[in-house]
Structure formats: C-alpha cells, structure tokens
C-alpha cells in the first residue's frame, strides 16, 4: 500500500500583470508517495522551480498562486495563512537550494543556523537544540563537527555547505525534502558525494524527496519516478526505468538524444531545434508542437495527459494507448 | 494609487507652508498677538539678568583685544582712570580728579579704598603696572599698544597719585583712558597666576566679577559686593549668552530665556514692538556707514563723479525704508556723537537731475560700470547696496555688487585697493573724536587708505594732532569737514542706530551709544 504524502492538483502559478494572468506553471497535477524520490526534470523556464517554491509557499513577489490546490492527508495548502505556512515550512516540508555558496547566511555560525530551525519548530532548550545540531552535522558527514558548529559559512567549501544545508533541512525530520538542483553548482566528485549522502539519508529517514534538476544523469541515479516538464506543463510522467527505456514524449526523446554519451561515438549530437516559447506567447495547441519532429494537424489542439502503461504522456501520439504511430 | 500620490503632493506643500507661514502667522497681526503674548514668560528668574549677545571676544585681557564685543561685557568688570557716562561725558572713574601739569604731563588723584575682585588693593602701583604692561613687551603683542603709544611712562608720586608722561601731545588721551587697553588690572594677580590665566579669568575693579566663562557659550558675572559705588550694583548676577544667529537670539527673547537682546536686526523690530512684554530701545551710535570710493580708479578720480553719486542716492529713503528709520543722515564720515562733527553741513540732497548733469560734465559715458563690494554676511547692507545700485542706474551708471567675506575685505581687499570702485566701510571712532576716523581714512599711507590724497587735508590732520586745545581743534575740524564734504571721498549713507530688545521686567536699562553696557543701575522686577 503506497501512501501519498503530497498531492498537487491542477496547480497554476503565474504573474498577475494588471489583471492579465500569465501562467508560468500551467495546471499541473502529481502525487508524491512516501519514501520515494520524485524527479522533476526540465530545461530553464519550464516552471520546475516555481513548482517547488509553491510547495513551500515561497513564491517570489509578483508571482501568484492562481488556481489549484496542494494537499496532504490533513492539510489544504490553498487555504493557508502565514502562520499555517510557517508551521509547514521546515517541519513538514524542507528545502535545499541550488547555490550552496549563498544559501547560508554569512553572518551567523553554522550551529546557530541549524538551531534556528529546531528552535522555531520544537520546544527544546538551546542546549538541546545545539546537541541536535551537532548530531545533524555528524549525520551529514561533516568532519570535525564540533568545530564546524561554531564556524561561519565562508570557512566551508561548497560541498560542505551543501551538507550543512541538508543538515538544516533534515533537522526537524520533515516528511518531504525538496531539493532544487542540489548539485548543479558542485563539481563532479563533490556531486557524487552529495548524491550518495542523500540516498543514504533517505533510506535512513524514510522521507520523500522531490528532486528538481535538469540533469538526466542525476535523475537516473536518484529517482524512482520522474516528471518531465516543458513550458509550464507536465509532458511525461514515468517510472525512471521506463523513462529511459521506453521514452515516449518527443520532447523527452529529444532531450535524451541530445546528451553526449561517453559510451557512444557520434560526430554530431541530435538536438531539438528552436527555443522554448515565452510564457506570454504560448502556442495555443501542444506547447511543444513548434519544435516537435512528429508534429501533425492534431497538435493544434492541446493534448491531455494520456495514461500509457503506467506512464503518463501529454502527446496525441498516445491517444490510443501505446500505438507509436509516426506521422 | 495616483490619487494617493496627488494627495501626498498636496500634503507636502501644506507641510512646507505650515512650517513656514503658520509658525509666523500667529504673530503677524498685532491685536491677536498682544493678547496671546501678554504673559511674560520670565517667571522664576530672581535678581538676575540674562543678555543675549552675538559674539564674545575669546580673550578678556584688555591689552589683547580691541573689540566692541569685549567692551560690552568687560565694562562691567574693568574700570579705567576716567569714566564715560552713558551720555558720553567724561567723569571721574578710578581717578577722583586729574589735571594737566603741562602739555605732556597729566596728574591723577586716585580713588582710595578700592579693591580688585581678588582682594588686592587698587593704588598707584596698579596703575603703573597696568601701563608698563600695556606699553611693554606683553602689550606690544596686542592691538592696544598702538592706541597708547603717545604715553611715555607712568610715574608714581605717592600711593594715590600718579603722573602720566606723554611723548607727544595727545588731544584724545583722556577719552582713551576711559576704557579698552587702559583699564586698570591687578598686578599681584597677574604676576602670580600669569597672563594666560588672566585671559580666561579676568579680575578688575568693576561692579561685577566674572565667575564663569564658557567659551562661545556664556559668561557669568556676579555682583561685586565691595564695589566702591555705594549701593551698587543692584543685580546679583548677569549672564551673557552667546547666540550668533539673530533669529535664534530673538527666539530666546520671545521665550524668556534672555532679558535683553543685543543687536536686534531692523527686520526684527516689528516683531519686538508687537510683543507685549518686550520693549524696543534704540540708540544712536558713533558708527558711520559709507560706500567709500577708491579714488585711484576711473571715473572716481573725478570729484564731479563722486559728488554726482552723492546727489544721486536718496539717503533719506534708504534710512526710512530699509532701516525703518533706524539710522541718521550724515554729512561726513562721522556721526553726530563725534567730536568734530559739523552740524552746519547738510548731507547731499537727493537730486538726480543735478547728478546727471555732473556726470555729463565729467564726461562719463552712459552705462559705465562700477564694482561695489560689500561683506556677504551683512543682510541689511545687501539691501542698501541694491538700493544704491537702483539709484545709480537712474543716472546711467551700472553697478555690479560683489560680496566678499568681511575679514578678507577689511584686512586685505580694502588696504590693497582691491575692493572695487566703491566698498562698504563702517567706522566707529572709539575715541568719539573725528581725529580717529579722519586720520586713518584720509592720511596718506594709512592702512585703510589705499588711494586718497589731498594736501590740505594732510595739513589739517597734522595740525589738529598738535594741540590739546579742543576749541582750536574744533575749528580745524570744521574746515576739514568742509573740504571733505566737497571732495566727497565717500558716499556717506547714515550713522547706525543700535536696537536693543528688552523684556519689560528690566528696569532702568539705558542702551549705550557705544556698545558698553552699563548694568550697575539696572534692576529687575
């Protein structure tokens, strides 16, 4: 029995420009199950970061939650006021960010920053909070944790800072961890360390992870299930193996094909022509149609998300199940 | 949003208006204000007087300063052998009497039983010490020395008699002995405590002793209980507050923080008069104001032009309008308080036609421009200069008013002849004798005389210095003033009238002609 820890329903997020609403995230729905790692993949501007920020109620000024709902078994996020959000943030859902160099406040010690999280959600003494912070640092594999507790962020390397961020995020035992490009800014060898760590912690703590990334390699490494986003919409949702082995959506296919592969010797990479349309100039039909190699008449109309063998695809090609008709 | 912002703009305007207009409006209409300000704000100040002054001398040693600001306060602390009454009559001071033994020797009988504030006795030694110091090394460092350089020495006859030996005849020496560098100082105190201490802690024989001096802030004088004039002074304490800004000084007066305001600006007179508990007192001063001509510069080398300018300017209108009547017309560069003033001479009348004619006669081209230099911080004179410029433009001269900082102007520009065609000069003549003014202004080579030269004037100036016969001198001055009137080395404007604003609780206060406040008779309600 899989347990849903989070359900996103027709979430629509966008900017409200003088009554003119421009959606950045256009009515996406998905669920997150307990203990799984859900990957959200897509290129810049596809809305993946906005999706993750809406889960935290941290949309930047000017961006509004337009429609839809996010809920857990006991909460409806749409109805939240400031207080409610604060109770959820950190406690139920925690987040780590892309830039470890700037996601820690430079003027406070590491210990203080972890303790702040604990103290704001739990009724513990400062000493207890400090002990827990130390414990967390050990958990995320920081060498000399006692000293690091009293050090400032600038004294740590990028990889160490990302570990600290993870320690902060996990310090109140959240059910859900949102990791927004957690390794993008890190070097390959450090990235490997962090990914190892996240895997290990997930097993240990049984939390669910929403991993937002543009790197299909990281997805392959980490995720159980993957959502592929394009221009504010989900175009494909699949188990990770299916995504790689039985790629369905033309966009996903294009994406995979354009990756250089170490094992493969090709002189040219295949690529997707054109660029992502701007949110206020979205094609009326399928949003990928202008760049799609398989575009046909039907694509003038926006396709729904079709269920195909446990995956979901937003493409007319799959209107009749998995019949992969090339037109 | 836009609506809000326009409201805000309006609010800002209102704010600015409130800030300026409303703060004053309450006092503009006299009927309203006399009601409103009827209550005298001074309540719990006992037998004490507070006076607001604009500056203080920084140094109290009589031989080191030569400033009106010094004499305003120091007159209450120090006394000279001779005294000058509020009406400027000479009267005995620390000396009971004096007589000329010969042209160059004056004998003084000193007052007995007088003590300095520190308790040491006043006697012939003190007098000798004072003049030895003034004429000695210490005195030569200061500005007073040159005022008394006619004195040779002081000889002690007995404890209460001294002879003043002069090097040359000096017709105004007695007047000079009434104050400034010649006030008597305590020998023992100075010798023991040193000159520097004396600068800040002056001791004299006057009706008040200085008990506290906070530089640039306040000077506290307390009653000298041993003062030799019976029953005086009446006040227990006098505080001088240093408030340079006139508007602040007036504010202090209006709020009762001070009782007497010195140097009321003409523009403030109305406000004072309209305030029920205040009184405006005016007094003529020896200070004359003129726009002096640099006669070395064309076309002012021509007497006709100088006369024309004198005809062209309506001095009466200036006095009436800009000075609200607080000024007196003058015919030469001296006030009617000055010895040597010639009452028969009437100021050049306002006659633009005559002026134009003279200009024409002198062959000055229409539109010739003249530089007029005035100090930048003299608000009143700025207005006057502009009025003058207005009048001169009527006769076809163009005027450029230039400002300079006052000190630069007095100490550098005027002496070096760099102060334009005409420049403002105010001159007090502290001896109240035209000698002081005329000699310094017209004698060739003097500091403040960059260009004026006239043989007859030279001769008369020397002649009046060579006699102590005041009748004789008066005659010489009469001739001199007539010559000067004709030569017109300056555009004589007016002699100043000083304004004092006084809280009505102050009794018996009489404003002095020459800034030297006399406070011993003053009392308060």
């Amino acid at each position: 029995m899989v347990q849903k820890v989070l359900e996103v329903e027709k979430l629509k997020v966008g900017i409200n420009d003088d009554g003119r609403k421009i959606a950045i995230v256009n009515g996406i729905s998905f669920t997150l199950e307990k203990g799984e790692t859900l990957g959200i993949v897509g290129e810049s501007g596809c809305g993946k970061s906005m999706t993750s920020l809406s889960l935290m109620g941290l949309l930047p000024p000017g961006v509004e939650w337009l429609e839809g709902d996010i809920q857990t078994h006991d909460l409806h996020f749409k109805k939240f006021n400031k207080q409610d959000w604060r109770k959820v943030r950190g406690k139920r859902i925690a987040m780590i960010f892309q830039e470890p160099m700037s996601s820690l406040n430079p003027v406070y010690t590491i210990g203080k920053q972890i303790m702040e999280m604990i103290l704001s959600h739990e009724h513990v003494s400062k000493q207890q909070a400090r002990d827990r912070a130390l414990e967390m640092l050990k958990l995320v594999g920081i060498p000399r944790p006692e000293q690091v507790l009293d050090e400032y962020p600038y004294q740590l390397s990028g990889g160490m800072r990302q570990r600290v961020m993870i320690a902060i995020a996990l310090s109140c035992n959240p059910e859900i961890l949102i990791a927004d490009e957690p390794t993008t800014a890190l070097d390959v060898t450090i990235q490997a360390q962090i990914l190892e760590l996240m895997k290990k912690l997930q097993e240990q703590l049984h939390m669910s992870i929403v991993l937002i990334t543009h790197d299909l390699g990281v997805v392959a490494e980490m995720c159980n299930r993957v959502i592929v986003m394009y221009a504010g919409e989900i175009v494909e949702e699949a188990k990770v193996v299916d995504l790689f082995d039985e790629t369905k959506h033309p966009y996903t296919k294009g994406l995979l094909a354009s990756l250089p592969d170490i094992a493969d010797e090709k002189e040219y990479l295949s690529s997707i022509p054109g660029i992502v349309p701007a949110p206020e100039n979205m094609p009326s039909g399928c949003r990928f149609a202008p760049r799609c190699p398989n575009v046909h008449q039907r694509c003038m109309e926006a396709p729904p998300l079709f269920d195909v063998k446990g995956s979901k695809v937003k493409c007319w090609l799959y209107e009749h199940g998995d019949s992969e008709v090339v037109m | 949003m836009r609506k809000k912002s326009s409201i805000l703009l309006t609010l800002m305007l209102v704010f600015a208006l409130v800030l300026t207009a409303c703060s004053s409006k309450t006092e503009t209409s006299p009927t309203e204000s006399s009601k409103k300000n009827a209550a005298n704000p001074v309540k719990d100040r006992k037998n004490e007087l507070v006076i607001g002054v604009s500056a203080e001398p920084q140094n109290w040693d009589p031989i080191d300063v030569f400033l009106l600001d010094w004499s305003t306060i120091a007159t209450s602390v120090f006394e000279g052998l001779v005294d000058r009454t509020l009406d400027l009559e000479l009267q005995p001071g620390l000396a009971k009497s004096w007589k000329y033994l010969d042209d160059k020797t004056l004998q003084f009988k000193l007052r007995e039983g007088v003590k300095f504030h520190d308790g040491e006795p006043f006697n012939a030694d003190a007098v000798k010490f004072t003049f030895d110091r003034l004429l000695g090394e210490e005195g030569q460092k200061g500005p007073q020395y040159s005022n008394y350089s006619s004195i040779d020495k002081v000889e002690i006859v007995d404890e209460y008699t001294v002879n003043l030996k002069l090097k040359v005849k000096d017709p105004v020496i007695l007047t000079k002995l009434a104050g400034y560098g010649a006030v008597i100082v305590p020998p023992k105190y100075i010798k023991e405590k040193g000159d520097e201490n004396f600068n800040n802690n002056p001791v004299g024989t006057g009706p008040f002793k200085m008990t506290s001096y906070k530089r640039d802030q306040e000077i506290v004088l307390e009653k000298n209980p041993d003062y030799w004039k019976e029953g005086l002074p009446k006040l227990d304490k006098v505080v001088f507050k240093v408030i340079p800004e006139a508007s602040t000084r007036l504010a202090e007066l209006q709020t009762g923080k001070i009782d007497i305001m010195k140097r009321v600006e003409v523009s403030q007179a109305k406000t004072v008069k309209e305030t029920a508990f205040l009184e405006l007192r005016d007094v003529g001063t020896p200070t004359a104001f003129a726009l002096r001509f640099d006669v070395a510069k064309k076309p002012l080398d021509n007497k006709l032009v100088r006369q024309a300018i004198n005809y062209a300017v309506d001095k009466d209108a200036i006095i009436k309008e800009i000075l609200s009547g607080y000024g007196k017309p003058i015919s030469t560069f001296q006030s009617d308080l000055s010895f040597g003033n010639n009452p028969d001479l009437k100021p050049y009348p306002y006659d633009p036609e005559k002026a134009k004619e003279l200009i024409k006669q002198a062959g000055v081209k229409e539109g010739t421009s003249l530089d007029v230099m005035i100090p930048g911080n003299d608000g009143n004179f700025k207005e006057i200069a502009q009025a003058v410029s207005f009048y001169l433009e009527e006769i076809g001269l163009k005027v450029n008013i230039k400002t300079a900082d006052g000190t630069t102007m007095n100490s550098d520009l005027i002496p070096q002849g760099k102060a334009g065609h005409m420049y403002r000069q105010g001159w007090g003549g502290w001896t109240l004798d035209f000698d002081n003014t005329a000699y310094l202004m017209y004698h060739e080579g003097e500091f403040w005389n960059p260009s004026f030269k006239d043989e007859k004037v030279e001769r008369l100036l020397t002649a009046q210095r060579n006699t102590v016969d005041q009748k004789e001198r008066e005659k010489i001055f009469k001739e001199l003033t007539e010559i000067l009137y004709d030569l017109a080395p300056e555009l004589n404007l007016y002699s100043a009238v000083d304004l004092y604003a006084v809280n009505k609780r102050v009794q018996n206060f009489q404003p002095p002609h020459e800034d030297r406040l006399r406070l011993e008779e003053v009392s308060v309600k």
Partner: protein
Amino acid sequence: MEIKESLLRVENLKKYFPVKGGILGRKEIKQIKAIDGVSFDVQQGETFGIVGESGCGKSTTGRTILRLLEPTEGKIFFQGKNIAELNKSEMRKLRKDIQIIFQDPFASLNPRMKVREIIEEPLINFEVTDRSEREKRVLEVADQVGLTKAQLSRFPHAFSGGQRQRIGIARALISKPKLIIADEPVSALDVSIQSQVLNLMRDLQKEFGLTYIFISHDLSVVKHFCDRIGVMYLGKMVEIAGKNRLYEKPLHPYAEALLSALPSSHPLQKKQRIILSGDVPSPSNPPNGCTFHPRCFKCMDMCKTVNPTLQPVSDQHSVSCHLYHLGQEQSAAGELI
C-alpha cells in the same frame, strides 16, 4: 615519433596570483599558484580538451595563453613563436589568430552594444577600415552561426542563452583565427541548446579547419567533442591522452575517480564509484609532494614528499604520478602499464 611543429606548444606555464599584505600593502605575502608548470601541445586542426574541477586552473590556463592574464613564467609557442615574450601591442595584433569563447553568454556580451557592433568590433580592432567590407564579413559570419540579419540590430538581452553563445562564436570567428579557446562554452546552456552549439562548433571547425582548446568540467561533453584531453588538478596537468585511451583506462588516480564519479546515463547501470574524500585544497596552500596525495586512494609514502612530473608513459599518453614513473625508474614499468 614524427617531429611536427605544433600549432601551439605550452611549456612549463605558470601563473601565480600574488596576495598582498604588509604595512604598505605592497609586500607579497603569499602566492596563489593558479597554474603551476603546465605543458602541453596542440596540433593544427585538432580539439584539445582540458578538463578538471573548479579551481583547478583550466580557465586560467586558457586566459594565460591568450595573455589576458600575464604568465608568471613559461613559454607559449604559437606557430613556433614564443608569444609570452611579445609586447602588449604585438600581442594585441596576434589576438587576431587566437580567439576565445566564454562560458557565460550573459556576461560576455556588452549589454549596451548591438549584436552587429559586438560582432564587428574585432574587425575595427584589427584595422579593417572599410565599412562595407566589415558589413559584408559581419553578415557572412552571422549567417554561418545561424543569426538572421534582423537579429543583428538587437541588443543581447533580447536573446536566449543559445543565441547569445552564437553571437559569442561569431565574434570569435570573424577575425578568422587559427586557434579558438573555448572556455566552458556550453556549460551554461540547457541540454537541448548545448547540443546545438556543439554541433555548430564542429561544423565551423570542419569548414575553416579550426583548432580548438576546449575547456570544460563536463566529462561527457569533453569526450564527445575532443580528440585529446588533458586532466588538470590544482594547477597541474596530471594526465594527457587521446580521448578513447583516457576514458577507457585512465592512469592517474584522480582521472580515474573523476570518470567514475560521472552520473550514470541509465538508471539500471550501476557503477562502481570511487568517492574521493574531502575537498580540493586551496591553491594558495597546496599540499607538499603530489598535490593530490591527501585525497588519493593509491597514495604511497613518497607521494607525500616528492612532486611527480608529467612524463610520457606511451606515445600520446603522459601522466604525472609516481605509480608509473617510479616504476619506470625502478624498471618495473612494463608491469604497470
């Protein structure tokens, strides 16, 4: 081994950044050894890749070759001429032949210049005085990189990342250089755009016979794009080899670890990872001996004291590691290689 004059030969190149201190702020109190004795050569028409993690000195190497940074020591032979000795104006003129493409397509274009001006600028600098000639060349090169004529009158902010990178390439290309240093040209781009740009660069290489030095941290891109690859670590070149050779059998432990750290390209492909412990040390205070020894999983005693040098272990394959050269010296080489 055939003696062929390389297009570019770098010998013992060093770039130290001084850290100033002392009472006057004039004294050099220490040095950051951004690159410390790098040597390699690049043949006409090939693509030489430099790969390494941030701070290893790969970008500094690229910029020092172009003398955007003045080398502290070492020789740079370009077409047989040591360009490290040229004076500033000679160097300026030589830049016609060596060009650079930068990483950040947002930062490398002057926001206040139109695309046309940006592309045209090298021609002005290299004294092509004829306006119409310049115009012709701009249109030509714009066409080659896939920019339309209309786009030339717009400002960079109107373009997406990929398009901007095309502008950058056009700017580098217009002076008809012989060598292009591409400093992380695609790492700021999305995958689909990245492949477009890489394909374009390859096309241009074929068309004009360009030589590239391709600097990147992305091992798969480097593998795809380059012929020979040098791996850098902490200011030093630790291994140079042909790409297949390197990717099949890296010799240096660092190169080995780096390759193993690559995320797998398929979820089922589970790799045996070498997870390096710790972080890259600071170049201002590099470890003694082999700079990699504190993190090395094959560290020997001598590694802690003796600094290895880059030496060939076979034709076209050099490595800087005691494991191999020690063997050589002790005549146990054959066994190891």
